[in-house]
């Protein structure tokens, strides 16, 4: 195991830019590398135009960017990408390897794990270092209960995927020095029976809730789609976005793009208001980055009420319209002043 050194993260090229999640891995990767007194590397496969991005990554704290730039990496093909990452891991032997839990990362990381016969922990929300044996302790919610599990891996590199939004965006470090190294994979690595023949972007309709400064979220406690709809009025007044728990998405009260939690997204707003949400760990792992958390629930013992900065006990179906009414009044007062 001594032969494995350094922290590696996967750099995801979206076709236009580096994916947001890479910058989040850079901040956590840097922290882990510093704690282990070792280097941070980024594995970046992409088409030739991703080259500029490679130097950009260095200014966010990467010591080395190991880039493979090839036309054939224009599209994400699971088999090609996985073989290239596996070849890089075999050559550079990092002790830790983190992937984003994006659609690409979730497809890629387990393929790499299968190729190299490595352990892989999915959707981690925190990491700790056990110094005496340089072990990465990986924290993730466990089996549908209100508990977290600490997981370790017997194989090296210790690999995990990280849900986007869990860690903060890395800060630019002026004058940070690092190098770009070009890695040429074997020709074999480029063999594939997959061909991406078309990409269809989805129409941009909704606000991206991962970027919202204010989130008003609703759960089953709102009782009906009609009550849930009112969240949109409140969100508009607060210049925010609407979030939801999984069951209400499945009931069709709102689309899954708004789901917060393990199966949805993580959010980092200044203010989050949760109406009729119990606060299952599946939901609250997506709330790690919330600054001020408000829960509105009839049950003062609901887990979200215990976690809240402001716990409001009451019927969300009554309080929600009252808040809308009062905010409207407040707004018009402010405008008249």
């Amino acid at each position, binding site marked *: 195991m001594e032969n494995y050194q350094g922290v590696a993260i996967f750099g995801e090229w979206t076709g236009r830019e580096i994916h947001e999640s890479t910058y989040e891995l850079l901040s956590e990767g840097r922290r882990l590398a510093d704690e282990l007194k070792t280097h941070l590397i980024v594995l970046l496969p992409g088409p030739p135009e991703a080259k500029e991005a490679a130097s950009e990554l260095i200014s966010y704290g990467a010591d080395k960017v190991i880039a493979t730039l090839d036309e054939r990496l224009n599209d994400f093909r699971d088999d090609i990408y996985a073989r290239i990452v596996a070849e890089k891991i075999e050559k550079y032997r990092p002790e830790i390897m983190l992937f984003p839990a994006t659609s690409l990362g979730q*497809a890629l990381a387990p393929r790499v794990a299968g190729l190299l016969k490595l352990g892989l922990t999915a959707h981690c929300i925190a990491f700790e270092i056990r110094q005496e044996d340089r072990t990465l302790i990986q924290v993730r919610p466990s089996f549908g209960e209100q508990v977290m599990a*600490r997981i370790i891996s017997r194989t090296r590199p210790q690999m995990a995927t990280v849900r986007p939004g869990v860690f903060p965006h890395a800060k630019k470090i002026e004058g940070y020095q690092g190098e770009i190294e070009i890695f040429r994979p074997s020709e074999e690595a480029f063999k594939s029976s997959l061909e991406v*023949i078309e990409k269809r972007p989805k129409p941009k309709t909704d606000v991206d809730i991962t970027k919202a400064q204010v989130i008003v979220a609703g759960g089953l406690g709102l009782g009906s789609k009609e009550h849930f709809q009112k969240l949109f009025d409140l969100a508009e007044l607060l210049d925010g976005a609407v979030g939801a728990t999984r069951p209400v998405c499945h009931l069709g009260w709102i689309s899954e793009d708004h789901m917060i939690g393990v199966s949805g997204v993580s959010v980092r707003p200044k203010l989050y208001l949760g109406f009729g949400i119990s606060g299952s760990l599946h939901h609250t792992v997506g709330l790690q980055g919330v600054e001020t958390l408000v829960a509105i629930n009839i049950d*003062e013992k609901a887990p979200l009420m215990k976690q809240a900065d402001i*716990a*409001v006990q009451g019927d969300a179906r*009554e309080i929600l319209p009252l808040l809308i009414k*009062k*905010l409207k009044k407040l707004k018009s007062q402010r405008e008249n002043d």
Partner: protein
Amino acid sequence: MRIMCCLKPVPKPGSVKVDPETHTLKREESELVLNPYDRYALEAAVELAEKTNGKVVAVSMAPPNAKDILLEAFAFGADELVLLSDRAFAGADTLATSYTLACAAKKLGPFDLIVCGKVSVDGETAQVGPELAAWLGLPSVTWVKDIKPLNDSLELIRTREFGEEKIKAKPPLVITIEHEANVPRPPSIKRLLKQDEVEVKILSAGDIGAKEEYLGLNGSPTQVIDTFAPEYHGKREIISGPPEEVSERLLSILKERGLI
């Protein structure tokens, strides 16, 4: 097409039992149901088999009490039922699970296509499909929401955060299925009546030629070392009373803190 469909029996919500020492699920003591996502995988497999005059082999790695779930799969259209069951499989993480399924695929194959669910609701990893593909040296496409059989290939629609991708893939390969892919059919009455006659083939580690060192808890590189309930800070503000009052109070606190 000959299709293998991987079906995961999962503990019924509320009946989850965890081994206090290994922190792994005690599946043999839990009431099991089919992983909800795997219904869509099974439907996709059955629809494709119908279109291509093929067969669906449903495979689960689970304790013996999972037999009923495979019989259910028969009612939903699976042709052959295989239960991989052996004490040696217990406590498997995704690497050991995918290895076991890969051994079964080699034994029962060759298959043109292997279909998995997008994710399981107990493990919640979405790893087994791509890992299985890697063990078998097959390509994989995850999060598939539409499958069209062409002459010698499949046209797949994969969901991504930015939208979707159309992918042309040559079998054999492994795919994982989104819940938007289809609307699963109800069980067939004709098949329900025949449930007593169908065989669930039970295979052990030896039957599928699996190597001991890659199986179960021993073959699992990841280990849960402990579990804990998250702790919360104590400085919270609690507001209760009539709705008018609490709304007023909440807004004034948010104003004070400069949040609205």
